[in-house]
């Protein structure tokens, strides 16, 4: 079991650099298991990361890896996918990388329905740079740039993506490994833009700053924050504060960017060589 999973990583580079208790390793494990269960050819997979702890997951894998600029993995991935549509493109990005500096690319890739799979590793902080606040940091939390308690409301990334037109949107947390694998398989197999908002733990920075520095304490908060979607939908708006729906949020079928583009190629008249 473990041997089979480890085949997807550069074993000479393990153990990885992530902190003790960090959820990144579990995301790596779940992703490898999902790909293994899908039986995909690893040579056709491209994994793209931005900048941040979770974005470093990309170069630990044995797939073609593209470690890009902060906030931009989705834009790089769009180019790679369009240049070679046979590639299975997986993006691993953090909450800040994906929804702050990368927010614009996220919205448009979802709107265009680019056939990409995006795992947003959401630890509600900028972990790598020491624990500053991000667009998913809960109101009132303590971070190095909100020492008096955060004064901003966080995004629900899934709401953002549903609004932008993404056909597959899901959310879960590292407390729910089996659900994570199940959702990853669905997202990977989806033809179109598929994203999972994965709540995870940063015990070293977010955890310690909020007196949840023990990994188990931080990961256990997911049990009260993440509510199964069916239950969440029945909650009164007042009871939804600080809570997020867990599971498949949306799963619809719609043509992808390339579906539309290819139809355009077929219908367009031959371009004239010169004016």
């Amino acid at each position, binding site marked *: 079991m473990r041997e089979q999973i480890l085949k997807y990583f*550069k074993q000479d*580079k393990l153990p990885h650099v992530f902190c003790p208790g960090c959820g990144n390793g579990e995301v790596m494990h779940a992703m490898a298991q999902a790909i293994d269960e899908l039986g995909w050819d690893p*040579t*056709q997979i*491209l994994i*793209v990361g931005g900048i941040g702890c979770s974005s470093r997951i990309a*170069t630990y894998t*044995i*797939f*073609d*890896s*593209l*470690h*890009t*600029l902060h906030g*931009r993995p989705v*834009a*790089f*991935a*769009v*180019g*790679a*996918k*369009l*240049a*070679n549509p*046979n*590639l299975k493109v997986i993006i691993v990005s953090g909450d800040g990388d994906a929804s702050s500096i990368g927010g*614009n*690319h996220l*919205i*448009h890739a979802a709107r265009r329905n680019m056939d990409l799979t995006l795992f947003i590793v959401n630890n509600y902080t900028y972990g790598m740079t020491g624990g500053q606040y991000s667009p998913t940091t809960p109101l009132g939390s303590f971070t190095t740039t909100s020492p008096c308690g955060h004064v901003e409301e966080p995004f629900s990334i899934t709401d953002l993506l549903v609004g932008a037109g993404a056909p597959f949107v899901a959310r879960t947390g590292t407390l729910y490994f089996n659900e994570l694998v199940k959702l990853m398989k669905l997202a990977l197999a989806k033809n179109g833009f598929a994203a999972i908002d994965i709540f995870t733990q940063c015990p070293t920075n977010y955890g310690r700053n909020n007196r949840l520095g023990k990994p188990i304490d931080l990961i256990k908060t997911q049990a009260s924050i993440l509510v199964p979607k069916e239950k969440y939908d029945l909650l009164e708006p007042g009871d939804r504060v600080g809570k997020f729906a867990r599971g498949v949020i949306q799963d619809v079928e719609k043509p992808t960017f390339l579906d539309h*583009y290819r139809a*355009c*190629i077929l219908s*367009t*008249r*031959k*371009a004239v*060589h*010169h*004016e």
Partner: protein
Amino acid sequence: MAIESYLWQGSHAVAQGALKAGVNYFAGYPITPSTEVAEFMAYALPSRDGIFIQMEDEIASIASLIGASLAGAKAITATSGPGFSLMQEGLGYAIMAEVPLVIVDVMRGGPSTGLPTKPTQADVMQAKWGTHGDHPIIALCPASVKESYYLMVKAVNLSERFRTPVIFLTDETIAHMRERVQIDVDEKLYIEPRIEPKDPRNYKTFQPDERLVPHQAKFGTGFRTVVTALYHDESGFQNTSAEVAERFNKRLVDKVEKYIDEFYETEEYNLENSELVFVSYGASHRTVLQVLNDSKNPKWGFLRLVTIWPFHDKLVKEKLKKAKVIVVPELNMGQMVKEIQRLFGDTKKIVSVNRWDGELITPDQLRKVAEQA
């Protein structure tokens, strides 16, 4: 097949040149005065099985260019000053990760929003130093519509040869003007092939060949390509040790600058007999041509820089050795002239003729300065 006569706009010549060179991916964002390049590519690429996409901004454009190039496409974009400023981080990435691509910068009035519809040549230094860090860059500058076509093919070729981004530095005048161009669109031109590695077993993404260029396998071919812009060793895996950083940065610069003689291009006229030489490029060269045409002074000549960067100290010094006066007309406050001043110091009289108001230097203006020099 046959030489035909066309009335082309500079921007369209750029696009035609790109297509001739095999470009099959364009991602860009509309910005005056470069939009015509994008519009032509939007028109021409789909039927050639290429990809045209208008990304959400210039940052996304250059990012997608890099992804596409690494996945095997030949990719270009077109922009102007403000967009070029946004692309600087991406440009640095492409340099560091050794990714072939071409950025067409149609220079307009700056700084910032500046003069969107008027020409300057004020991005010259930005093309060299806009992105942070010690890095090499190749920048080419056409002075006519016909040259825009052939030079664009060369730009794409150089980006493949050196696995580095190339800046195609044109300006609003050359890009928007229309000239009669007589060419054979079907003629065979040299197209630099992208060297693909053969053996996955000993493959390392950043293993340089004897010319210091790594041959990266495109994604999806089973080679396990690893690309990052953190310092990395030959395998592509990040490595920020002092030894690797020192060695790697040096190779990156040497890769281009040690081979400058392979691609450096100038055009010259009457340097053998000239006491006064105009050193010019792009739109301001047109003024030089008019002045020489009108005055017919046998002691005047020009050295036109087609390659803007890298600057070839040795060759320029050699070509200008007979000149007593060097006149450098530029549509900026004096950028390329600084390279000439650096080269010659007080040993020659160097006269800078500048205009930065969005208008061309007139032949009268230039001739008067040359006569008084």
